[in-house]
Structure formats: structure tokens, C-alpha cells
């Protein structure tokens, strides 16, 4: 199963993206909205809620998986509430693009490290934004100094540590979800 960007070149993803948007049906878009909220909804319920048959629903999901529109079904986790210790950082990386390959080759070298969670090509004062995670501060620092900075095409890095997460993938972590409506109203 693919994780975000895992093993796929940016160019391919881009091409697939353009390809997908041309072929998305209303059913597919409805399914994506539902699955993005809760990917554990049963096939039967998805079918009822989108007004299609179970076969049509299964086919649409299957097709989106094959086209890599759906990459994986993962929960959004608030790790701060668990015992797991981890350090996260966002690293702004300046690089020298490679002949014929542009930034893709550099990105590929970077995203293959298991410490790297996400890589984005950015406009502005740096080139790549790299999200890195490690169990301890020391390990993360070592990753930057020994693995990332030493890549021949990397010309500079600026590391910022994540102190607290407020919102991720549209989910607010410490939101007051109390329903303030009257229990029964006309």
C-alpha cells in the first residue's frame, strides 16, 4: 500500500492527478467526501448514502484505489495523548536541481528516508519542505546533520521543531465538540 508520495515521482503523481480530475464522477466525489470523514463506513451504508448500488459503490472505490486517487485508509491520531515519545520538525531545504530531472530526483533521494513523513516542492525562499519525525531530539538532529545536509545537491537547511499540533487534515485536536443545541426543538 502506498503512503503519501511513497515511491512515486512527483511528475507521475501530477500526471495521475490531472488524469483523475478529468474522470471523477459525482459518485466518486461523494464517496471521497464520506471516506475522508470516516473510512470505516460499511459498503452497504456508503451505497445507501450515495444512492447507488453496492456493486457500483465497490466498483467506484476499487477504481479509485487502482488509480491511486485513494492511497490509504488511515486514522488521524493525536499522538500527544499517547505514551509514544516523538519529535517532529519541518525542514526548509534549499537544493540544486538536477539536470533533466529538475527537483524530482532530489525529492526522491529525500523522501526515501524512513524519518521523512512528507515532502513538498515549494515556491518562495526555499525549495523543498520536509516533514521529519524521530523518537528523540538527538536522533532527529543526527538525521539532519548526517543524512540530509550531506546530500550533494542540498545547499542549505533550516530546521523548525513542532511544539504543538492544533489542527491536522481539517481536524481540530482540542475542539469543544459539545452539541449546544436544545435537545428537542420545533
Amino acid at each position: 500500500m502506498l503512503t503519501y508520495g511513497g515511491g512515486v515521482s512527483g511528475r507521475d503523481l501530477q500526471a495521475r492527478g490531472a488524469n483523475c480530475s478529468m474522470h471523477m464522477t459525482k459518485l466518486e466525489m461523494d464517496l471521497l467526501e464520506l471516506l475522508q470523514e470516516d473510512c470505516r463506513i460499511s459498503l452497504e451504508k456508503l451505497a445507501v448514502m450515495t444512492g447507488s448500488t453496492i456493486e457500483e459503490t465497490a466498483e467506484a472505490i476499487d477504481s479509485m484505489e487502482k488509480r491511486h486517487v485513494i492511497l490509504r485508509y488511515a486514522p488521524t491520531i493525536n499522538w500527544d495523548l499517547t505514551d509514544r515519545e516523538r519529535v517532529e520538525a519541518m525542514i526548509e531545504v534549499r537544493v540544486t536541481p538536477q539536470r533533466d530531472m529538475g527537483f524530482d530526483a532530489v525529492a526522491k533521494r529525500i523522501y526515501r528516508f524512513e524519518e521523512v513523513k512528507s515532502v513538498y516542492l515549494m515556491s518562495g525562499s526555499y525549495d523543498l519542505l520536509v516533514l521529519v519525525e524521530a523518537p528523540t531530539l538527538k536522533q532527529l538532529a543526527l538525521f539532519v546533520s548526517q543524512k540530509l545536509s550531506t546530500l550533494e545537491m542540498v545547499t542549505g537547511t533550516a530546521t523548525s521543531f513542532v511544539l504543538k499540533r492544533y489542527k491536522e487534515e481539517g481536524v481540530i485536536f482540542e475542539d469543544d465538540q459539545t452539541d449546544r443545541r436544545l435537545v428537542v426543538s420545533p
Partner: protein
Amino acid sequence: MNYEKYINPTVAAVPPSGIRRFFDLASTMKDAISLGVGEPDFVTPYHIRDAAVNSLLDGGTQYTANRGLPELRREIAWYLEHRFGTPYNPDKEIVVTVGASEAIDVVLRVITGPGDEVLIPDPSYVSYSPSVLFAGGTPVPVKTRVENGFALEADAVRAAITDHTKALILPYPNNPTGGIMKRRELEELAKVVREKQILVISDEIYAELTYGGLQHESFASIPGMWDYTVTINGFSKAFAMTGWRIGYACGPAEIMDMVNKIHQYAILCAPRMSQQAAVEALRTGREKDYEDIRKMRDSYDRRRRLLVGAFREMGLDCFEPLGAFYIFPSIAKTGLSSEAFCSALLQEKHIATVPGTAFGASGEGHIRCSYATGIDKLNLAVKGIKAFLESR
């Protein structure tokens, strides 16, 4: 002290809302799952809240013009004309009110006097009949039937009209049934209105919430009907703005002058911050082609299908509601009255629903379930109702 002699007998005679008892009981249960809520489960979109806060911080704390901020009335006029094909002059034909509720009350007071009859589809929203009574008039229920999707039938209206009939309230999409009126049905009704020369108070608060590819048809857009119609709408349902209490009435200037007369003496104006929020809601809606509304409607639609499907699977008859955010299944098969069914369901399973009879005698045999609630809760409620049915 005995206050009885001080109380207006008309007010004393109106029974308390049939919803009250369920509210009181459900409020004492910490774990109650409610399908009894008559408002969106969305919070007002952030940009609207932000606009209201900014207006307050900028010192916008004064009265506004009685009829509402000119800017808001212009936005309302644009919205109604482009969205529903009903043009209104923002200077003369629109009054901004404290929720659509105030609009209903004031419009009824403008046209109803002692001895006047007002036709009200049955079942319907709880406040029409009391408002007619408070205005000194006589509410006349017009039965709607499940076989006809709870639409108002022209023949039934014709049969209910007497020499004293002043007006008809037309509340579609309908709370509690979820029924809508299709254009052909409105055209049939228009013939009766023209023939009998009665006014129509069209409460279109759920206009944005129609499903199955059907668009809301506004009664004033039927040829010739603009002159006979007062259109009432508001921001509560389409923009998830219930607590802001902001709505409006639109109609011929001669009627709206009178609406404004009561409104200016009784209320003066709707709160300025709510009006500013409403301006933001309509302006952004216009600029973004009502994207937020579409998303909300899509979300309701999915839950509507889920709940209708679940009730049918339980073996209860459930007509397909194409508007608002309620389903109105029949519980007649259980042999219980609506009231008894809802009471037992609440007491045994802690699931709050509203008996159909709270909305009129024709609601007997039905319960109102709102699907303006998270999918998790809907699923839990369905499970509970299923167990409740199996235990009987």
C-alpha cells in the same frame, strides 16, 4: 394572588407546545440521543461569525433602519431573484425581521382580525396556529396525506375556503414531513388562489434544502402569484444561523408597509450584528456560487438516505421526504399512538423523537426524526429504535 382575570383568555386558551414535554424529559437524560432537534448540526460558517465579530469591534452597535440595513435588503433582493426567480424591491418590498418567526407573527397580525380564517396545512410547524389565534383569527387545518407526499392538494384547499378565509400558509419544504411542492402542484393551487382571491403566506425557510435533483419552487414565481404572496425566509436553515434570529418577509409594498408598521413599534429593528452576519452570508454565497450551501445539502442528503433506508429496513413505512431535514415515518404498525411511541422510546431507549401530533392532528401515526445529527449518532439511534421495535 389570582392572575387569571388579568390574562387574555385567547392566550390562556392556547395549549402549550406538544414538544415541551419531550424537551423536559429528554433534558434530564445525560445520554439521550436526539432525533428531535429542529436546527442544523452545523455551526455558522466561520467567515460569517468573523464578520459579525468585526462589525462589533468596529463599533456597529446601533439601531438600524426599521426595515433593515439597506445593504442587507439589496443582498436579499439579489438572492431571491437569482436563486428563486422572485424579484422584490429592496426599498419597499422587504422587511428584515427577528427570525422568520417574527415575520410569520407580524404578517399574520397584519392580515388577520377577529372572525378571519387562515388555512394551515396539517401537519405543519407548531407556531402557525397559535400565531393565528394570538392575532384573533381562526386557524383552519387542511389535511395533507402521505399518499400525496404531504403536498397541499388544491381541492382540499378549495373545500376549506369560506367567505371568511383571508389567507393560506404555505410552508414548503415542510417541517415536520419533509414534503415539498412541485411546480405542477403549485400551479393547481394558484388557480384556487386566483379564483377565491385569498393571500398566500409562503414560508420558505427550508428552500435551500431540497433533494433528488429537485430545486425549490417559490410560490411567488408562479405566473400571476407574486401579487397574492408574502414570501417569508431567513438564514437559520440555509446558513446554519438559528441563534442569530434573522429572517425577512417580502411582498407587495402595500402589505409590507403594514408589516413594517407593527415591526417598527414592536421590535424597532433586527439586531445589527446579526444583520451584518447575514450580509456576509449572502455576499459570500453569491461570490462563491453558494458552495457552502451545496456542501451542507449534500451532507444532509446522505444522512437522509441513510435514515430513510434504515427505517424501511425495520419494516416501517417511510415516504421519501425531498426537503428540509426530517423524515416522517409511520409507526401505525406498532399499534401505538405517536405520543405513546415517542414516550416509550425516550424512556426505554433514551432516544428523543417528536410525535407527529405535535404538528397537528393529521400527524397521528407518524413521528418526526431529524437527520441533522452526526452519522455516528444516527447509527446509534437506528440501533436503539430497532431494538425497541423488536422488544414489542
